């Protein structure tokens, strides 16, 4: 009898332990299901959740695409990124990279939400076939985030970059600007700088950047049209993949401007001189690559840059070495991969980012039959 009583108590003890161990899971589940929609207060089913990652770091959660769309208008200015949920995997995905389908299936009944989000085109196609759905463009409509206004004496459309708040595209209707007495044949570097100065002054309300922040990338003429582009710099260091470029027709008309700019001088407090030598940075990058690829990589090219690193709706900046490292092992037939681009923080020595290169930078790559 005593034996059975002891067994009963031991079993009880074990069950108690299991209960204690499982408690946090229940709590987590409870807190997850207790998430409420920021628009209508309804409980959120995580499979249909939409998140606005605000520029200030706040996350607004919505029960459905329908509710998120209702909230979009008031919140538009502060949104850094919109994440929707892939209905297949339950993973959160950037709305701009999502395939949306409108079908007969209602996902969130209380708002009659019939728009579905899929990370892959195949899944979206499957849903369309299965439920007589049709593919629709991103309902959050960032493709159409344009402003139209008069700048100088020209009507223009401006697309604003959500992260920087700076223009990314300026399209003239029909021109952004027309240069008076433009001499296509006589344009030189000095003339290109003058045009940039004029453009910056014209768009001062939007850009507020100094002409000294720029560096000429290239100016070339195709027939009678000029194509001019500039880098943006910070303390003389080029900001990686930044640009301000435009074309000028024979009559001095600038139809559009393409911009990839940052509020660098206004908001950054970065050193502009590396603490690490190139040799040290290269050793760090090679050691990092060796962890996953135990063969030797050779330095092909490098540059000290300001690297804007995008993370969940915000941008962090680093003074970094970009190191292009290649290895014969990377050259696999059928693959366009040719090596690595490693970004090493030139102050702390941390690896900021690393990704495959699809081909040798600044060089057009051909794999001849002999090399196969």
């Amino acid at each position, binding site marked *: 009898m005593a034996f059975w009583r002891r067994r009963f108590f031991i079993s009880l003890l074990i069950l108690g332990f299991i209960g204690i161990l499982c408690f946090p899971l229940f709590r987590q589940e409870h807190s997850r299901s207790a998430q409420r929609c920021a628009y209508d207060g309804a409980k959120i089913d995580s499979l249909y959740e939409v998140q606005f990652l605000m520029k200030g770091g706040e996350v607004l959660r919505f029960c459905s695409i329908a509710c998120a769309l209702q909230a979009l208008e008031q919140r538009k200015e502060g949104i850094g990124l919109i994440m929707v949920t892939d209905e297949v995997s339950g993973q959160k995905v950037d709305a701009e990279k999502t395939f949306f389908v409108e079908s007969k299936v209602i996902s969130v009944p209380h708002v009659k939400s019939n728009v579905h989000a899929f990370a892959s085109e195949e899944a979206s196609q499957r849903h369309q076939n299965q439920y007589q759905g049709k593919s629709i*463009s991103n309902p959050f409509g960032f493709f159409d985030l344009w402003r139209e206004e008069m700048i100088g004496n020209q009507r223009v459309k401006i697309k604003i970059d959500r992260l920087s708040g700076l223009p990314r595209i300026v399209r003239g209707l029909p021109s952004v600007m027309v240069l008076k007495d433009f001499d296509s044949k006589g344009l030189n570097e000095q003339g290109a700088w003058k045009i940039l100065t004029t453009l910056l002054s014209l768009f001062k309300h939007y850009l507020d950047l100094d002409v000294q922040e720029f560096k000429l990338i290239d100016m070339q003429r195709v027939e009678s049209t000029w194509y001019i582009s500039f880098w943006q710099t910070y303390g003389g260091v080029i900001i990686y993949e930044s640009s301000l470029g435009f074309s000028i027709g024979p009559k001095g008309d600038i139809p559009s*401007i393409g911009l990839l700019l940052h509020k660098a001088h206004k908001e950054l407090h970065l050193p502009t001189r590396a603490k690490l030598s190139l040799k040290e940075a290269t050793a760090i990058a090679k050691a990092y690559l060796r962890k996953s690829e135990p063969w030797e990589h050779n330095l092909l090219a490098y540059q000290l840059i300001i690297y804007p690193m995008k993370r969940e709706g915000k941008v962090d900046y680093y003074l970094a070495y970009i190191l292009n490292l290649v290895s014969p092992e990377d050259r696999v037939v059928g693959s366009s991969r040719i090596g690595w681009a490693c970004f090493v923080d030139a102050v702390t020595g941390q690896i900021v980012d690393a990704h495959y290169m699809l081909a040798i930078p600044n060089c057009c790559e051909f794999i001849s039959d002999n090399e196969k």
Partner: protein
Amino acid sequence: MKSRLSQGVVLTVLLGFLLSCAGHEGEKVKIGRTAPNFQYQDISGNKGSIEGLRGKLILLRFWANWCPYCKFEMPRIDRFYQLFRNQGFEVIAVNVGDSVEIVEAFTAEMNLHFPMILDPEGKLAQSYGVKGIPTNFLLDRQGMIREIIVGEVFTNDQVLWDLFKPYFSKAS
């Protein structure tokens, strides 16, 4: 030792299979064959497919922002596109590996008018057997591949005209 050997065998078989698949993809895309269909959404949000463009003469062009030759040729192709788009000439520019921001800015900088689509991981390029950039595929009005041109060739308008002229005259 035995397990390492079997791992090696499995890996070799797998690699062989993958390479044979890669080879197969490349073989499908040849002059005289129908171009593989794909659906796309361009950076302005417009959707389309290669099959949906049947009846048009298409220049399918793979390019990247790091490639200077790809960029130099763009204005000339755009001028040609604007001249002949009313005669059923279509350009589909596939950017390999760059972000939408870069492609949008470049398109505005160059004031390009044709659809620009993104191939961030190079999968489409790979399925077309692209081994160098720029690569241009000329598809006739039936969707058949008529020319595959690798490298910088459109150095003047005459080259473009010589290339496309025979197909314009066959317009239905």
